[in-house]
């Protein structure tokens, strides 16, 4: 190389321009926002899906089965493209049919929607397994005390299944944080895309990709700390590793 410049130009990571640090950080914040949003949406879908699969009618069960099967058998990347273009389009077509004005779906909302639908299928399976792991006697006892079905669910089934669900749900969170990277292919400014933009503009590919890797890894490691705290709390009632 003719260029005598230092091999690694750390100043590119500085927080204020011309450093790209703040751009990376805002990308990270975008990623985290989508991960949190998508994960929460997925959890909601998952709770509904799990109860639907366990206690719903045969048609609902079959439809949910199709949902989870398709999501689990088709690559996230493809789902993200389909949902990103078709999902929001369909919503607007429905709005049109209902005579409502087309909603303006922001990139953030679309991202959350896409990740949420994918996570929803996974959560459905994780939660369904966890609910099935709750001994049926516990639920029967609740009914014997005169609890209504809603009470049984909120007071007994959901809290009792937590220790069984948390390992799976923790993994889903870690997956959600990493799946946000896939939104780069639809041009959403999350961490991976802004990393590529920064790298493309400055040509410091190695530096920026490593920096993004460190950020993702930090996110994972910090998450792990919280996960182990939550896990310990949730397992209080269990005598031994089940």
């Amino acid at each position, binding site marked *: *190389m*003719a*260029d005598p410049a230092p091999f690694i130009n750390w100043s590119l990571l500085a927080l204020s*321009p*011309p*450093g*790209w640090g*703040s*751009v990376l950080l*805002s990308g990270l914040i975008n990623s985290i926002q989508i991960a949190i949003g998508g994960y929460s949406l997925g959890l909601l879908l998952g709770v509904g899906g799990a109860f639907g699969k366990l206690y719903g009618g045969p048609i609902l069960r079959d439809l949910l089965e199709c949902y989870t099967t398709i999501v689990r058998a088709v690559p996230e990347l493809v789902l993200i*493209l389909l949902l*990103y*273009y*078709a999902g*929001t*389009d369909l919503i*607007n077509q429905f709005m049109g049919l209902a005579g409502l004005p*087309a909603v*303006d*779906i922001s*990139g953030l909302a*679309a991202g959350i929607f896409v990740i949420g639908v994918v996570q929803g299928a996974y959560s459905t399976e994780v939660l369904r397994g966890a609910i099935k792991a709750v001994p049926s006697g516990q639920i029967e006892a609740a009914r014997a005390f005169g609890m209504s079905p809603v009470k049984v669910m909120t007071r007994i089934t959901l809290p009792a299944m937590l220790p069984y669900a948390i390992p799976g749900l923790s993994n889903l969170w870690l997956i959600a944080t990493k799946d946000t990277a896939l939104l780069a*292919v*639809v*041009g959403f*400014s999350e961490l991976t*895309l*802004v990393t*590529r*933009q*920064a790298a*493309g*503009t400055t*040509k410091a*590919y190695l530096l920026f990709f490593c920096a993004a890797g460190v950020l993702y890894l930090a996110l994972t490691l910090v998450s792990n700390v919280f996960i182990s705290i939550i896990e310990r709390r949730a397992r209080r009632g269990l005598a031994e590793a089940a």
Partner: protein
Amino acid sequence: HAEQIKVGFAAEPYPPFTSPDASGNWEGWEVDFQKAVCAEAKLDCVITPVAWDGIIPALTSKKIDIIIGSMSITDERLKTIDFSDKYYNTPTGVIGAKGAKFEPTPEGLSGKTIGVQVSTVHQVYANKYFGENGATVKEYQTQDEANQDLAAGRLDAVQADSIALDAFLKSDQGKDCCELEGMVKDDPAILGAGVGIGIRKGEDELKGKLNAAIKAIRENGTYDTFSKKYFDFDIYGG
């Protein structure tokens, strides 16, 4: 008050037309152009970077409202979307590694690997003229990736808009590795009649406004003013 219009373009550095700076803002000739047109047409424009390979679906599914992203007006695209009048037109060039002299002709590129960006007129052109005559055409999601692979020695040549190539050749990386091999023979049926603003079909009112605005900034000198910042020739073309 003005309605909000989402202006789509590729979310990748494409200097000197669109590229992000270190504070996350987009700048470049096309950004200036877009500001001028929107101001002239009294449109409230929002910059919306999207993935280039999905930019037309994004337009048709209303994720964006217009495309100002160096998109050439071609017959093929006109089947799906509509265009405003052209707002710039430049020849198409081919660059290669320093010292690897060859002609940008089917014969000159035979046996070589040439990179182009997908969904561009260059992709169609390269496939037709070079791909069918013994060259390997590799397609990239972004122009930047193609340039990068040329610099990394994974490509022998890159075909693209001559101005975009020029910007690359002027960059630190481009200066070291590559040089211009020449312009390709024109084929207006493929390379199109210049670059226009992409619009959804049927939105003729918007199209009229944009055409009027382009005309106006050409006439009142705004166009030349911001163009001078980037080019020392007339980018509007003949």
